[in-house]
């Protein structure tokens, strides 16, 4: 048993009573996982996800776990042949289907699925043992869903990076052989607009900010956002409209609070955004936008229009 699990063993004595039932439900025995090993897996998960929690919370946590998937994944990670047979039977086609759906291309999908499959099996070794990605599955979501997320993650991490390495021939074909020189940075724009926008965005609920980011920044359709949030498209449509109005109002109010006149604020909200000075790299490096702004030492009423 790993050292970190020993602490959680002491922290979850109620598992002693619950563990046999969970072990039976998980069918872990079929894949060569002993009751003791399974209990240590549960303790590890509790220690990781609910380090300081009450007994009912832990019991609730355990009862909501996808126990069969968890046992299967951990048995595969341990290298149990029977578990791998069951995994292949249940998830092989799903893995390829999901990869094809993500990449929208048959050959790329197959390539992606093979790559993830290699990670799941474990191509790297640590202390003489294969390190399988399945060992990181914790049973909170379904294994099929987790595999989809891993595929999506791999696709974003790997394939997007590779797309940046465009060959010169392809670049020429795409007409980018004469890239325009970088535009000189414009520094004449009022920073209060950026500050007011950041404040307005921060005042939104995280989920609302996610909707705004998906709709404005990623240009996702209303249907896509609605599907992601399990609501109807019209709900998102109304919400986007409402959020846009609220955001504009909040920014306007913020600009007035920063010393702008109403006319100045209205003009600032119609400024061509391409004129805004944005240093994304610097913003990412900063702890918070508020501190970044306050460091600039701007006083209300300062700054151009």
């Amino acid at each position, binding site marked *: 048993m790993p050292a970190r699990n020993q602490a959680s063993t002491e922290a979850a004595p109620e598992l002693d009573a619950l563990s046999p039932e969970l072990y039976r439900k998980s069918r872990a025995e079929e894949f060569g996982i002993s009751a003791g090993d399974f209990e240590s897996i549960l303790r590890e998960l509790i220690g990781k996800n609910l380090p300081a929690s009450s007994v009912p919370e832990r019991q609730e946590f355990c009862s909501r776990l996808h126990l069969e998937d968890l046992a299967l994944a951990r048995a595969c990670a341990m290298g149990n042949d029977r578990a791998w047979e069951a995994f292949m039977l249940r998830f092989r086609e799903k893995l390829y289907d999901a990869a094809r759906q993500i990449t929208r291309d048959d050959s790329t999908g197959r390539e992606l699925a093979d790559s993830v499959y290699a990670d799941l099996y474990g191509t790297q070794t640590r202390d003489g043992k294969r390190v399988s990605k399945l060992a990181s599955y*914790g049973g909170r*979501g379904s294994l099929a869903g987790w595999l989809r997320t891993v*595929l999506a993650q791999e696709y*974003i991490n790997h394939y*997007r990076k590779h797309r940046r390495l465009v060959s010169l021939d392809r670049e020429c074909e795409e007409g980018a052989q004469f890239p325009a020189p970088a535009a000189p940075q414009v520094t004449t724009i009022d920073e209060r607009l950026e500050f007011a926008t950041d404040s307005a965005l921060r005042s939104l609920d995280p989920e609302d900010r996610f909707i705004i980011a998906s709709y404005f920044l990623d240009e996702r359709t209303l249907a896509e956002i609605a599907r992601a949030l399990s609501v109807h498209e019209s709900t998102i449509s109304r919400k986007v409209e409402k959020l846009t109005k609220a955001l504009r109002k909040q920014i306007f109010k913020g600009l007035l609070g920063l010393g702008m006149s109403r006319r100045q604020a209205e003009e600032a909200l119609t400024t061509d955004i391409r004129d805004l000075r944005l240093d994304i790299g610097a913003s990412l490096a900063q*702890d918070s936008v508020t501190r970044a702004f306050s460091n600039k030492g701007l006083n209300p009423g300062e700054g151009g229009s």
Partner: protein
Amino acid sequence: MDTLKKLASRRLNSQPVGQHPDPELLTLLAENSISRRDRSKIFEHLSACSDCRNIFYLALPETADNQQAFALPRKQPRFGFRWATLAASVIIVGAVLISNRAMFTEHSVQNRDIATYSAPEVTSPKTEAAVQERTEPTPAADETRPRVRPPAKHMTAAPQASLQFDQSGEVHFAAAPAARDANAAFAQSDRPATAKTKQLDSRNIVSSPSAIMPAWRISSEGSPERSFDGGHSWQPVSVQDGVRFQAISAMGHDVWLGGNAGNLYHSADAGQSWDKVVLTSDSMAPESNIVRIDFSDPQDGLLTTANGRIWSTSDGGKNWQLK
């Protein structure tokens, strides 16, 4: 709007991203089974991290297409297609007529021959000579005549029907005296049978399942609706507040509805009352959304959840087993 969109986009892009979430948290969010606390935390990250947003959208489970719970009326063929069909029919009929013209001509000759050669059967003394003169073939005519058909047979003892008009203005068919007795037996036996058939027909219309069984569908808001007029108008059916239904199966009086978080409801009286059905097996109850319900007959059915699990029943939904 456009300025605000660009402004918000740029500022969102410059937010600090922080630590990326565990794939399991994204899975929980995609499967809509995340806790409120984690939900807020993960949306906080997603609103700032473009890559994780993309992963999240890609990781969403594939939703099943809306199930067709009732047979939609067949679409009428398009206007042009109907005219094309009519034109093709006219051409075919025309072609058949033209190709068989010779046959029709021959038939008309034969008919004339029959008329001519059946004439001697008429024994009227006044016309006998004329007929004799007319029917005696000349040698030339004999050669050109295609063939001689046997004289037509006449029916004998045919019942002479007569029409009787009464005061009510209705017309009755009266059999001839000779045939009346013979037909009486048929009439006696036929009338009750006809009446019985009519009674049966009217009873079938009242009790026909298609006449009283409503059609069902799931609205885009995820609530069940039924129609009693073949889909012209739909009435919402209240089952359970807060449940977003995605799957429906209707067979006779039995209606099954599946929704989010494994919610399953059954009505045995065509939607008048609903019972919540809890799926249990040796493993766990489904927390995932039910995306499809298929009953091949009232006893055997399958149920699919968003995470790909399939449950089956072979006793009309009393017990469900995870496949």
